[in-house]
């Protein structure tokens, strides 16, 4: 039982292009914001329920606030707002995905988390420009699975972001 899928016959170079490297598939954490999105599991530390989020004044609009995660104060980003999607509410199924990029640990507020999926690299394509509601700068690719389309996000770009000036200060560069 193997999770590689090979066609009936093939040339070495075609197969090895996909399976030749160490990573033949991506493991992603899939979550929902209306559409389905995903981030690489390597960047996810944990997933927590949404508790009290303390609002921080003079923050960018997509920063929901900060939470206390075992003694550590984490900023929580409202992903809907960050991606300029239609606004949503925090429901019971909402979760905060605690992500780690380099040395930064940030929480991301989402509507709900599905599960961890293995996506063979050959099912990942570049994002088609027209279809996306979301700014394609933030998209690493699109995974096409049986009946499902998962939009893979580039967390690093999401966190870097363009300058947003609040009333009295300038946030992120």
């Amino acid at each position, binding site marked *: *039982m*193997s999770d*590689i*899928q*090979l066609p*009936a*016959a*093939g*040339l*070495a170079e075609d*197969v*090895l292009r996909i*399976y*030749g490297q160490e990573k033949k598939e991506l493991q992603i954490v899939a979550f929902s914001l209306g559409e389905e999105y995903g981030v690489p599991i390597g960047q996810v530390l944990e997933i927590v329920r949404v508790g009290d989020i303390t609002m921080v004044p003079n923050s960018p609009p997509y920063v929901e606030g900060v939470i206390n995660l075992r003694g550590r104060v984490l900023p929580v980003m409202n992903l809907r707002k960050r991606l300029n999607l239609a606004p949503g509410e925090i429901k019971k199924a909402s979760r905060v995905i605690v992500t780690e990029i380099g040395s930064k640990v940030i929480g991301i507020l989402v509507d709900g988390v599905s599960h961890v999926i293995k996506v063979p690299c050959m099912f990942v394509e570049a994002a088609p420009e027209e279809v996306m509601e979301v700014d394609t700068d933030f998209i690493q690719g699109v995974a096409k699975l049986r009946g499902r389309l998962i939009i893979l996000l580039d967390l690093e770009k999401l966190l870097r972001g363009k300058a947003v000036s609040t009333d009295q200060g300038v946030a992120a560069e």
Partner: protein
Amino acid sequence: MSGLNKIMVVDDSRLIHSMYRLVLSRYGGCRIVDAMNGLEALDVLSRENDFDLILLDINMPVMNGIQFMEKIKKENMFRRIPIIVISTEGKEEDTLRALKLGAWGYVVKPFKPEVLYDLIGKVLAKRPPFLSEAARRA
């Protein structure tokens, strides 16, 4: 089809050899040499190395397909011979391993003859020109 004069089929089943003879009869005038396992195949190669193609089964006793590939990997002379591995469903890891060791392509058995013809065509097309010359001379 030009360029296919001599093929070695390496498989441990006599039945499979007969079947291949049938399938490969398409390439009229092509000589087919049988080997029952990797060791025998090496033996053959030490005497005749002018094959245009080797069809190599992976699961064989004494020396299987992977071991055979590892042995000839070191012999530059043999690397010029295109090898197509015959694999089975469920053994994709082995197939990949063989490809990484230098096989030019693969088919999964059981296969339709067209699939094999198609692949052979592609593999031969990739062969560098001088190889077919040498083969024709032999």
